[in-house]
């Protein structure tokens, strides 16, 4: 690809990017949130029109006007946002757009062949083949992501583009993905890989291209360079530490859950969080961490005899409103479906959970206050672009996540439950989120973090609960925790 340019309105996102991908290599794209990675690959797949530039495929100039053109060339794509049809079966999703038929163009679909092939792809990813005939909507978000990957595998593509495929997977599935990618590369297939997780780039990548503000900064071999150097190129300065862990003196117990039953299990969950510590929740995808958080927050029904105590006082939470009023904030894991009003401005999104706080005496909302507050958070969290009127949809994934965090900061909550808070955000931003957690703890808030990113748990938490099948299977002070111990507890042992 040569000199690719793209702007949305006057927002020049790509300002001339060149990239070449060789067969049998894993080419990593790295850049801050909003650097233009997703936009760039959407042009490559024909999903967006480019403003300028040329694309060559096997030496020949090609014109990609829509996703079909790219598919026909042999380019398969896993987009950053899940692109699946919940109402269709898994195998139908895998073959969507290029179904197998029994005969000619207008003949019936060959369901058997599709199911067989779908099962093969799923087993390549270490998944049960029965999944193939289930309705996709019944799977959890992680499994849905795996189906997307299977979809790309089934295409028999020559180039597979993966835009943050691991962001909603836990360690185990990520391993499966790694070995799968290795297999593909051995077959001579090229991979373009976007990720914010440096350790996996180090492990899998052959070459790395770094983007910043719509410019290509450099392309480097992965082996011979240092991740810290990438970061420097990426953010324009060096980053002192990836996990700015600060330790505070452990305070009193501030938050306690008793007898909480996560749906589908019989054994109640009990845990507590003290002031001055960050408590992590680790586990495999589907371990029930999100469900636990939702139950606490009043978003899902729960057992009657469950108790929630803040500062030793029991609080009654029947719905999210009660939870917010009790001072709990829940930063949900899926920013698009649970976090944002995509077609409304950033300031409204930020103020949404605390509209009451912006009312004047006449019970009218003061829009100026909202704007001022939003500006404040945008500056504090370095949300880009710093335009409070931009609709949430038009922020890049990482910046969307920051908007969601801003929304919850705005509620002045006491207890913060972060569910996968750094999913899809860049290293620089991650550090900002971590600093923010530190700050929250320092200012006397309770902080819990559900995360599938083990290094992050190990790097930031003071204590970690491990969940498996809706039960807490371990409670480890961080100095006793290790990848191995956590994984062991997470798999039920």
């Amino acid at each position, binding site marked *: 690809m040569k000199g690719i340019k793209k702007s949305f309105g006057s927002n020049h996102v790509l300002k001339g990017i060149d990239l070449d991908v060789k067969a049998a290599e894993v080419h990593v794209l790295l850049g801050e949130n909003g650097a233009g990675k997703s936009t760039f690959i959407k042009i490559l797949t024909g999903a967006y029109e480019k403003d300028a530039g040329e694309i060559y495929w096997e030496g020949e100039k090609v014109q990609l006007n829509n996703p079909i053109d790219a598919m026909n060339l042999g380019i398969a794509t896993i987009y950053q946002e899940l692109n699946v049809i919940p109402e*269709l079966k898994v195998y139908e999703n895998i073959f969507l757009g290029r179904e197998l038929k029994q005969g000619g163009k207008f003949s019936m679909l060959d369901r058997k062949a599709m199911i067989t092939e779908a099962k093969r792809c799923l087993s390549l990813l270490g998944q049960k083949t029965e999944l193939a005939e289930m309705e996709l909507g019944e799977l959890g978000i992680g499994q849905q992501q795996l189906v997307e990957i299977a979809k790309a595998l089934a295409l028999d593509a020559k180039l597979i583009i993966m835009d943050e495929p691991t962001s909603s997977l836990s360690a185990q599935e990520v391993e499966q993905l790694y070995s799968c990618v290795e297999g593909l590369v051995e077959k001579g297939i090229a991979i373009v890989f976007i990720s914010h997780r440096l350790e996996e780039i180090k492990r899998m990548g052959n070459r790395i291209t770094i983007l910043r503000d719509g410019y290509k900064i450099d392309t480097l071999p992965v082996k011979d360079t240092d991740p810290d150097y990438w970061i420097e190129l990426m953010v324009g300065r060096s980053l002192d530490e990836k996990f700015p862990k600060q330790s505070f003196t452990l305070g009193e117990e501030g938050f306690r859950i008793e007898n909480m039953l996560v749906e589908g299990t019989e054994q109640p969950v009990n845990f507590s969080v003290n002031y001055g510590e960050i408590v992590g929740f680790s586990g495999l995808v589907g371990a029930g961490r999100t469900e636990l958080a939702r139950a606490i927050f009043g978003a899902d029904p729960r057992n009657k005899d469950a108790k929630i105590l803040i500062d030793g006082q029991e609080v009654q939470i029947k719905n999210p409103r009660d939870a917010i009023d009790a001072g709990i904030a829940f930063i949900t894991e899926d920013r698009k479906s649970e976090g944002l009003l995509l077609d409304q401005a950033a300031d409204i999104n930020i103020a949404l959970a605390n509209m009451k706080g912006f009312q004047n005496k006449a019970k009218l909302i003061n829009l100026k206050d909202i704007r001022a507050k939003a500006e404040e958070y945008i500056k504090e969290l370095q949300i880009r672009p710093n335009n409070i009127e931009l609709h949430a949809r038009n922020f890049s994934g990482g910046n969307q996540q920051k908007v969601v965090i801003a929304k919850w900061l705005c509620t002045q909550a006491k207890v913060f439950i972060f569910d996968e808070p750094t999913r899809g955000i860049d290293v620089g931003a991650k550090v900002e989120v971590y600093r923010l957690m530190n700050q929250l703890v320092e200012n006397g808030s309770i902080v819990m973090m559900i995360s599938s990113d083990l290094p992050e748990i190990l790097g930031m938490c003071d204590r970690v609960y491990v969940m498996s099948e809706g039960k807490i299977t371990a409670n480890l002070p961080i100095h006793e925790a290790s990848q191995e111990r956590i994984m062991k507890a997470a798999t039920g042992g």
Partner: protein
Amino acid sequence: MSQIIVDKKQENITEKKTIKTYLAKLAPLLALILLSGILTFLSDKFLTVNNLMNIARQSSINALLAIGMLLPILTAGIDLSVGSILAVSIMIMGIVSVSMSLNPVLGIIVCLAVGAGFGLLNGVLLTKLRLPHPFISTLGTQFIGRGIALLVTAAAPIAGFPYIIQFVGREFVGPIPVSFILVIFVYVVMHIFLTRTQTGRYIYAIGGNPEAARLSGIKVDRVLIIVYTISGFMAGLAGLVMVGRVNSAFPLAGVTYELDAIAAVIIGGASFLGGVGTVAGTLIGAMIIAVLRNGLNLLNVSADSQMALIGVVIIAAVYVDVLRQRKKRK
């Protein structure tokens, strides 16, 4: 070890799934059986071959419109113009085959072609003009279609259609109305179309997640155009049945029929949010409406109470489905 745990969970889900599927298919049927039971109890005329055939015949126009309507609704759209399309189709068929006395088969072809043509127009307006929602494009063509139906004969009705045109709407095979046989045939074809062909599955995909469908290489516009064209075609076909039943075409034919068709589709378990709905459910939905109206007539319920009762039954029928789904989720 973790593998085993995962396995168990999934097996569980699969097992649950099959029971769910059966239940899901049973749901609107339940409402139909309930309703029929009540009516059998209240009127001895209800459960007679004669009356059942009556219902079969009376349901056929709405059944055809409803199966056409199912497609837009599956794509999270709607088609408000079916009643008007029906009217234009039959008026123009009247002009061709009665006023101009041309070949009746040509008349039938024209009727279906006009229906499909208007449907095509709906699809093109929606996709090419990029109108924000089919509510607008089809509301517009609802007016346009009705206007044309009124214009072509200056609002006069047309009677005296040739037998061939009347055949479908009028004749019987044994005790069974030909129109009902047509309905069954169309429903079987549509079932195969929706479940076993590529375009059929694409219709569900577009309703489920249009952006994902587009990125998977589905030509969304093309599929939408097909969807609205089929809906229009069905309106033309329903018009043909209507002309056979009443041996005349009149420009106000089909006023508010879109509501009955939509009600049938939704009572049949489809969702306005797209991606959910079946052909069998739609048939049951259409039958529920026909049985209800027939029953109210048999019981001589007054027109005003009929209105109120129909409203109650529409809500109740959908509520039965809601209850079932809630149980399913448990």
